[in-house]
Structure formats: C-alpha cells, structure tokens
C-alpha cells in the first residue's frame, strides 16, 4: 500500500516512541492519582490513544483502528456514561489508596527484576527472550490478522480468540447477577 516506504524510511522513530511512551506513562499515573473519576477517564482515553499510535508505529494499523473504535470510542463512552451517574461529591471524600504498600513494593520489585532480566545477557551471550527481526508489512496487516484468526490451515489462534470472548460473557453474566438480586 505504501511504495514510498522503501524509498523513505520512517524518520525519528525513537523520538516518536519516547514521546508516546511518556504520554502513556503520564496518562497512566493520572488515571490512578486523580480523585475525580471523570478526569481519570479522560486520562485513560489519552493513554489508550497513545497506545493506538504505538500500534501504528509497529505497522499494525488494523489493530490501531480497532483499539480506537473499541476502547477509546466504545468502552470509554460507557465508562463515562456510568461515571456521570455517580455522585462526584461523595467519591471526592473517599479514601483513594489502601495501605497495602508491602505487597505493592514486592510486586513492583518483581516486575522490575523481570525487566532487568529481559535486558541482561548472560555470560555465554544468551538472552532470556530472543530478539525478533522486525518486518515492515503494512499492506498485508489487515489480511494478516484475519489469516491468523480464521485461515483454514494457518489460523492457529481461533480457539484462543473464541475463549477470550467467552470470558467476556462470563463477566457480563457476573455483572447481571451482582446488579440484579432477582432476575
């Protein structure tokens, strides 16, 4: 779809990545620190949009489009819809953080250790995760996703995909059961 890609390689890719990553991290921090739920939701939308841009940088425009439609467009609207019905005055007074800082530090330490493990090479030159070669195929992306899911022979992710939607069904049933005592 983009014949110029080979002639003009993408410019300033690292800077775009750092910019987007910074937006995502700041947005993520704002989501948990804002007391006003609507502000949190707006910060979450910013994070999701920056994530969609990251997908675009990875030459996965289809995933980026779906991210915008489903998360930023669909789910966040429902989020806001629900949040607006909550009394903001009462939520402002509520305690925002619990006192589980010991567990928190342990979890953060483990995650940090994992990050360090990923980026360190052992003495015999091996890494924990093999570095994959990045291939730039923008044109076949939409078809590629469909092939991975639905192709008769290559489609290996169909089952996982359907199981994931079953999980959502479980969540919906759970929500109905919790919200309505008598059905």
């Amino acid at each position, binding site marked *: *779809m*983009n*014949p*110029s890609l080979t*002639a*003009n390689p993408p410019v300033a890719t690292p800077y775009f990545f750092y910019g987007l990553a910074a937006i995502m991290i700041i947005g993520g921090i704002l989501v948990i620190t804002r007391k*006003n739920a*609507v*502000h949190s939701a*707006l910060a979450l*939308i910013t994070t999701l949009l920056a994530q969609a841009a990251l997908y675009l940088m990875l030459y996965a*425009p*289809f995933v*980026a*489009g*779906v991210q*915008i*439609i489903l998360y*930023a*467009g*669909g789910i*966040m*609207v*429902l989020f*806001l*819809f629900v949040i*607006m*019905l909550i009394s903001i005055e009462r939520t402002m007074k509520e305690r925002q953080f619990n006192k589980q800082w010991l567990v928190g530090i342990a979890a953060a330490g483990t995650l940090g250790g994992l990050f360090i493990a990923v980026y360190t090479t052992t003495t015999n030159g091996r890494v924990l995760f093999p570095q994959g070669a990045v291939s730039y195929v*923008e*044109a076949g*992306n*939409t*078809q590629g996703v469909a092939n991975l899911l639905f192709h008769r022979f290559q489609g290996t992710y169909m089952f996982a995909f359907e199981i994931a939607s079953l999980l959502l069904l479980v969540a919906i049933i759970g929500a109905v059961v919790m919200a309505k005592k008598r059905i």
Partner: protein
Amino acid sequence: MNAIILYIKSYLDSDLTPGAAGNWFWATVYILLVFVGLSVAVIAMNWLERKILAHMQVRLGPMRVGPHGLLQPIADALKLLLKEDIIPAEADAVVFWIAPFIVVLAAFTVFVVVPFGPTHAITDMNIGILFMLGVSSLSVLGIVTAGWASNSHYPLIGALRSSAQMVSYEVAMGLAVVSAIMMTSLSAEGGTLSMIGIVQSQLAQQEWFIFKFFPLGLIAFAIFAIAMVAETNRAPFDLPEAESELTAGFHTEYSGFRWSLFFLAEYSAMIAVSSIAVTLWLGGWLRPFPNLLHGDTWDQIFSFFPGLTFLFLAVITFYNVVRMPQHPLFKIQTRGLAGFGALLGLIGLVLFVPVVRERVGDIFWFVAKVAAFMYLYIWYRGTFPRYRFDQLMKVGWKVLLPTGLALLILTAVFGMRAELLAQVKEVFQR
C-alpha cells in the same frame, strides 16, 4: 532552490495521493485546501439551511444582511467571536475547556482519508473506513464531557441521551458498513478497507454497491442513512439538544467561540458521514452510469457538468437580480447580487477550460453527491417530528440491529453462492 522546485514538481507526475507519495509540500497544500473547503461548506450550509427551512415553512428566512441574506453567516460568525466567553462558576473548568476541542478535532481529522478522487485525498490508509468510523466515534466523548462539565441539569441529560444514542446506532452502522466491505472482496483485487480501494472496487465490478445484490445493498444503505442521522444528532434524532425539552441540550452553557466550535463540528461531522455513505454505496467520485454510457463522447459530455452547474446557478442569481425591487435603497444590494452572480458565472467558465475540466470532474461528482445528502439533512429537519427517547431506542435495537444482522448473513450467502452451490452439489454426488 532548484531542488525545492524539483521536489514540488515531482509529485505532479505521480498518480498517488500526497500521503502515499510522501510529499510534504503537497500534503500540506491538500490539508489546507480541505480545511478551507470544509469551512466554506459549513458557512454555506448555515445560510442554505436557514433559507431552505424558511422556504419549507413558507417564510423568507434571512433577508436583511446582504441580498437575500447572503452575508448573514459572516455576520453570525462575527457576532459569535465578539460574544463574551462564559465559563459557569460551578463548572469543571478544564474539562469544560477541552470538550469543544475534542469534538472539533474528531470531526476534522476524519477528512484525512476522504477520497475526492483517485488521487485527490490527503492520504490513503490501509484501514481507511475503520479510521473514519473510529475517529468520528470519538466526538461523542466531547459531547459527553461537555454535558458533564457544565454541571447543570439540562446539559447532563443531553449528554446522557447523546451517549446512549450514539453507542446504540454505532452498532447498526457498523453492520451496514461491514456488508459493503464484504462486497468489495468480490472484485479481483480482493477485499479492502481503504476508501480509495472501495470506490475502485465498485469501478471494477461496474456497479455501485447500492444496486449490488438488489435489494441487499439498498437495505444496507438505508440502515446507514438512518444511523448516520442519529450519529450526528440531527433531526429527527436531535434528542441531545432538543430545544423544546432541554433548552439546548449538551451545549446549553456554552457561548461565543466555544459554542461555534460545536456548530462547526456538527456540520463537518454531517459532511464526513455523508462522504462515508457516498464512498461506500454511491460510487464515490465516479460519474453516473459509467458502465452504460461509456466511451470518449460520454466522458466529454459528462465533463461539462461542473461548468454547466455553476452557469445554471449564475442564471438563477441574475433572474433574482432582475426581480430585485427598483427602489434606490436596494441599489447596493442589487449590485452585490449581480456581482455574486458574475462570480458564479466566472467559476462556471473557468470550469470549461479543458485543463481544469479534466481534473475537477471527480471532485465535482463527489461533492455533488455529498451535497445531495446535505439537502436531505435539511429536508428531514423540515419534515419529521422528533422521536421520543423510547421510540429512538426501539428503532435502533429492535429494527435496525436485527435487520443489519440478517443483511450481513444474506450478503455473505449471496457473495459465496457459487462456492456454496458447488459444495451442495458435491454432497449430493456422493
């Protein structure tokens, strides 16, 4: 200096969109052209809507500012810019400030992929139609936050209505769009989501998708045409801003410049969804009857249409110049209208120049089809009473959604009928 000129000229030989060619200069030019064109279209729509609605209700409409109220939109814009910008004391100032910009950004960004011609688009994306649907659905966030941030009852109810309405009609809209995209996969190049690709697939199949698998294409188009009115919050689905119930709905507390941003966004969103409908079902930039009336002679004849349209408008204008009152007080107005007619005639004549004629044909047909939709929007507003909220939900979930699902399955069956028949035959032969 030479290198710059070469860079600018190099694009003119290619048959790509500026985005695909990676040409910064022409991409900027196209963006500016689309932006200016859109702003002019919104201004024109403002005047046309007031005039057409007035004539439908046997009124005159704006007549004071300029001949036949032609300068009314400019006067309105000046008034809006000079108005005091009020932020209510109890409002959430930051969100109140951001909301109009979210709406405007969503409404304008969409035009990046709108194909005015095979090369006349800012860029062509692999995911064009998904991008348009996704970004235009972001505008509901602006409306919801605007209603909430106002911290007032009517805007909040308007925002709640708007989010419920947009989420429910998006589903039906998506189903209709998917059925059209499935039709693109029947051409030799395979299916595509790119806006230019969709029109080219209609060209390759020698059929606008509205007539494909009659009446399936027509039904899909009808679902989209209903859902798009609801998506843009226009009458008869204008519940989020129902004047008689909610004062002005979600933008009750907005004034001046910020209010005009909502206005701008509403009209450009209308143009955007109309151009999706035109691209998917009405053959985009293709002129009417390319399969029946083909050949150089017919191409020649159809290429005169843009110029003829403007000459026709000029003739109507001059007819009204003659009809102006002969009183000395109307002298300036008469001259102004004559000048406007002369301008229209001049544009018409320029459009007859062969060099221009060959290049604007596709843009003309695209814009003409979108303009028909814009007239329909005004017509709906003049004709239909507003739906009640439960009726709105009923239409969305109980009529459009099941129809859309059935349509999707039928389109798939019709598209695969050769393969299905072959399989059935195989089973019987065993």
